[in-house]
C-alpha cells in the first residue's frame, strides 16, 4: 500500500504539486527564503530602477529573497519569453519569476494560461488595498481574478513648462489650437511605446461624445466610425508636432530630456508625481507644472504577475506582497523617489502608517488627489492594439 502511494506520487509529479499555496502564508515565507526572483520590468526609467533596487534590499533583509531586476526595453519581450519557453517545454524553471505588467500583455498572458494564480487576493497585504475606490480588480476592462497583484496607480497628466505655456489646456481640441499657434513644441512617445499608445487612447476618449463604446472589444462594423475623429485630429496635429512628426522620442523619459533641452514645452505623463521627481533630479526645469483635461484623464493600475513556469513562485509572491506594504507604498508615493499613486485604502491603515502618507510632501508640480479630478476608464485592450497598429501604418512607416 505504501509502495503504491509512492508510485502514485512518482507518477504524478504534476506542476500543481510543486506550487506553493498562497493561502498558507507561513509555508510561502519558508519556501521563499533563499530563492532568487528575476523581476522583468521596463528598465528605461532610472528612478524606477532605483526603487526596484531598494525593494531588492528590503526583501533580502526581511525574507532572504534575492531580487534581480531584468531591465526590459519592452514588456512584450517578457511575454514572448514565457511563450517560447512553453513551446520549448520549459515548464519548471523559466527565466522569469515576476513581470511588471498590465493591459494588453496581461490580457494575452491570462488568455493563454501563462500565469500562475489566483494568488493576489490571498496575499496578507491585500486586506489594505482599496478595492472600492481604485480599479485594481479589472485591468483594461479584463477581470483580474487574482492573477496579478496591484502595486501602483497611474493617471494621465500633461507636463507643461510655464515659462512657455501661460495656462493649462482643457481638452484635445484646445491642445490642437495651441499646437497651431506653437508648431514644433509638442510631441509624444512613438507608438507602440506604451505611453505613446496611451496618448492615442487619451485623445480618442476626449474626442468622443460618449467613450463608453470603448469598454467593449473592437467590432469591425463600428471601428472606423468610432476612430474617425481620432485620425482626423492626428492628421491635423502631426505636421504641427516636433520635427513635423517625422521623428518621435522613444519613450516617456526621453520627453523629459527634450523638455530640459527646451525643444518642447508640453509632454504627456502617466504618473502625476513624475514632474516633481524629475525637477528634483535636474531632469526638468523648475518652471514645469502639470494639468489634467476638463473631462478627466485615463487612469489605471500597474500590476505584477507570476508566470506559470516560474521556479521561485513563493519568492515572487513575497515580493508582490511587499510591494503592497505601507512601507513600499509610501516610498513609491514620495515624489523624491517615484511619485506613484498608492493602491492602499487610507482608512484600512494603522494611524502610524497613515501618518507616514500624510507627512509626504507631494511637491510643487504634483496635483492633489482632488485636482486630479475624474478618472476615465481604460478602453478594452483590443482598442489599444488596433489603434497602435493603424498608427504605425499611417504615421510610423514613412511617406
Amino acid at each position, binding site marked *: 500500500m505504501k509502495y503504491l502511494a509512492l508510485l502514485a506520487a512518482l507518477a504524478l509529479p504534476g506542476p500543481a504539486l510543486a506550487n506553493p499555496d498562497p493561502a498558507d502564508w507561513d509555508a510561502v515565507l519558508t519556501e521563499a527564503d533563499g530563492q532568487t526572483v*528575476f523581476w*522583468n520590468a521596463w*528598465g*528605461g*526609467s*532610472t528612478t524606477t530602477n532605483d526603487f526596484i*533596487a531598494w525593494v531588492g534590499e528590503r526583501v533580502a533583509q526581511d525574507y532572504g529573497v534575492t531580487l534581480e531586476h*531584468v*531591465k*526590459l*526595453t*519592452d514588456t*512584450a*519581450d*517578457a*511575454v*514572448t*519569453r514565457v*511563450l*517560447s*519557453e512553453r*513551446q*520549448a*517545454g*520549459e515548464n519548471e524553471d523559466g*527565466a522569469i519569476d515576476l513581470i511588471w505588467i498590465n493591459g494588453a*500583455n496581461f490580457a*494575452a498572458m491570462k488568455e493563454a494560461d501563462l500565469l500562475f494564480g489566483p494568488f493576489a487576493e490571498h496575499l496578507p497585504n491585500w486586506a489594505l488595498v482599496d478595492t472600492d475606490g481604485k480599479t485594481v480588480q479589472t485591468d483594461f476592462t479584463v477581470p483580474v481574478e487574482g492573477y496579478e497583484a496591484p502595486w501602483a496607480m497611474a493617471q494621465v497628466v500633461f507636463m507643461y513648462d510655464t515659462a512657455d505655456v501661460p495656462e493649462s489646456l482643457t481638452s484635445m481640441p484646445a491642445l490642437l489650437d495651441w499646437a497651431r499657434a506653437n*508648431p*514644433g513644441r509638442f510631441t509624444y512617445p*512613438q507608438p507602440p511605446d506604451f505611453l505613446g499608445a496611451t496618448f492615442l487612447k487619451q485623445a480618442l476618449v476626449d474626442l468622443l461624445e460618449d467613450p463608453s463604446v470603448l469598454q467593449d472589444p473592437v467590432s469591425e462594423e463600428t471601428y472606423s466610425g468610432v476612430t474617425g475623429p481620432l485620425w482626423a485630429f492626428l492628421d491635423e496635429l502631426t505636421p504641427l508636432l*516636433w*520635427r*513635423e*512628426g*517625422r*521623428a*518621435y522620442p*522613444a*519613450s516617456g*523619459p*526621453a520627453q*523629459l*530630456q*527634450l523638455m*530640459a*533641452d*527646451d*525643444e518642447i514645452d508640453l509632454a504627456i505623463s502617466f504618473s502625476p508625481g513624475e514632474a516633481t521627481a524629475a525637477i528634483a*533630479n*535636474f*531632469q526638468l*526645469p*523648475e518652471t514645469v507644472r502639470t494639468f489634467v483635461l476638463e473631462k478627466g484623464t485615463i487612469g489605471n493600475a500597474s500590476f505584477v504577475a507570476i508566470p506559470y513556469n516560474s521556479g521561485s513562485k513563493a519568492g515572487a509572491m513575497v515580493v508582490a506582497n511587499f510591494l503592497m506594504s505601507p512601507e513600499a507604498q509610501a516610498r513609491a508615493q514620495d515624489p523624491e523617489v517615484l511619485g506613484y499613486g498608492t493602491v492602499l485604502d487610507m482608512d484600512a491603515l494603522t494611524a502610524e502608517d497613515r501618518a507616514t502618507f500624510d507627512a509626504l510632501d507631494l511637491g510643487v508640480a504634483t496635483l492633489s488627489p482632488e485636482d486630479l479630478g475624474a478618472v476615465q476608464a481604460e478602453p478594452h485592450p483590443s482598442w489599444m492594439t488596433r489603434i497602435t497598429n493603424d498608427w504605425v*501604418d499611417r*504615421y*510610423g*512607416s*514613412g*511617406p
Partner: protein
Amino acid sequence: MLKLLPLLTVLAMLGPVIAGLWGTVLPAFGHLPAAGLLGPTLDPFRALLHWPGVTEASRLSVVTGLGATILSLGIVAVFMAGWSGTRTFRLFERLLSPVLSVPHAAAAFGLAFLIAPSGWIARLASPGLTGWDRPPDLLILQDPGGLALIAGLVVKEVPFLLLMSLVALGQAQPKQSLLVAQSLGYRRSTGWLKTVFPRIYRQIRLPVFVVLAYSMSVVDVALILGPTTPPTLSVQIVNWMGDPDLAMRLTGAAAALWQFALVLLALGLWWLGERLVARAGRAWIAAGSRGRGEGALRGAALVLGAVSALSVLVGLISLAVWSVAGFWSFPDIFPQGWSARTWARHGPPALQTMGETFVVAGAAMALALLLVLGCLESEHRSGRRLTHRGLWLLYLPLLVPQTAFLPGLQTLLLSIGADTGRAPVIFAHLVFVLPYVFLSLGDPWRAWDRRYATVAHALGATPWRVFCQVRLPTLLRPILTATAVGLAVSVGQYLPTLLIGGGRVSTLTTEAVALASGGDRRAIGVYGLMQTLAALIPFALALLLPTLLWRNRRGLHG
C-alpha cells in the same frame, strides 16, 4: 590534439553562424513546429511585403551601408595620401587606439549630443551667432535619410580602416614608390593614390566588406541615431522578434533572410563598383596628370580626419560632463551646477555590471586565445600557411549580418533548452572575438624569426618548450594587443548579449543601450564612460605590461 584545434576553431566560429541561419530559414518559410506551425509556405514573405515600411527600411539599409563605407574608405584614402609619414600623421596614429576602443554605442551617444539642434555645437553658437534662444526644430538626429546614422558609423569605421591600412602599409613599401613618383614630378597625394593605394586596397578589401556588411545591419547605433518612421530593417527585425505575436517572429525571420540578401546584393554592387573604379583609375594613372588642387585636397583630408576623430573624443567629454551635471538647459554651454549624485546612484551598479562584462569577455577571450595560439602553432609545425580561401573563412562570421543568424540561433538554443545563463553568451561572443584575435595575432606570429626556434631546438628543447619559453615570451606584446582587441570586441557586443542572454546577462553595452530609450543623459554618461573604460583598460595594460615585465630586456620591447 594540436591538429584538431584548427577544426575546432572553424567549428566554434562557423557552427553558430550556420546553425543560426538554419534556425532563420525554417521559420522564414513558415516552419516553426514548436508553435504548431508547419511549412513550407511563403506567407511570412507576403507579410513582410505587406508591411508599409518595407521599401523605406530596405532603402535605408542599403544607403546607410554603402554611404558609410564609401565615406569611411574615402576619408582614409585621402588622409593617408596627403599625410602619411608626416608628424601630423603620427599624432593621429597615437589617437587611433583610444578612438578605436570607444564602443560604437558610446561614440553614438556622444555624437548625438554634439550634433542635436539642442546639442553642444548649437549651444556654443547660441544665442550669440545664431540668434536661437530656443533650439531650432531641425531634423538632424533620427533623420529619415539616415545621415546621422551614417555619420555615427563613419566616425567609428574610419579608425578601423585606418588601422587595417597601416598594417597593409608595412608590406607595400610606400616610401620607395612615393619617392619614384615624386621624382617623376607627381605631387604627394596624387603620387600616393596612383602608386600606393591600389596595393593597400587589395590588402584591406575584406575589412572593407566587413564594414559594409556591419553598417547595413547594425542595431545599437541605429537605435540611437537612426530614423524611427520607419526604423532600419535590422531594428525592425529585432522588434518583430520581440513581438508577443508569434506570427511576427516568422515575418522577422523572413526579413532577416531579406536583410542577408540585401547585404549580398550590396557586396555585389561593391564588387561591380571596384571594377569600374579600377578601370577609371587605370585611365587616370595612364593619363599621367601630376595632380591639381593638391593643397585643397590635403586640407580637406586633414579637416575630415580631425572632425572624425574629434567628434568621438569631444563626444566622450560631453558624456563625462553630463555624468556630473546638475540642471543643464539650452543654450547653456555648461551645466548650471555640478553634482556627484549620478555617480553615487549609478556608479555601484555600473561597476557590478562591469564585472559581469569582464567575466563574459574574459572567458570568450581565453577560449579564443587558446584556439588561435593552437591554430598558429599547428600551422607553424605543419608548415602550412593560411590560404586566401582560409582568410575568407575567417571573415565569414563578420560578413553575415548579425540580425540574419542570431535570432535563429536564439530559437534553436531555446528549443534544445540551453538558452539561459552566461555560457551560451560566451560562445556567441566567441564567434566575433575569434576572427579579430586571429587577424591581429596572425601577422606578428608569422613574422617571428624562426632562427630562435632553430637555436632552441639545437640546444635540445622540445617543440612545447620552445613554444612556452621562447615563442610566447618574445611575442608577449602582440599577444597582449590581440587580447585587448578581443576584449574590446566582446565588450562592444550588443545583439548577441541581448538575444542569446535572454535578458539575464547584462553587460555595460546592453545596459547603456537600454538606457538610451529613456534618454537620461546623466545615466547614459556614466554607462557610456564605464563602457569605454572597459574597452580601454586592456589596451593600456597591453601597452604597459611588456614595458614593466621586460624592463631589463630591451630587445623584447618590439
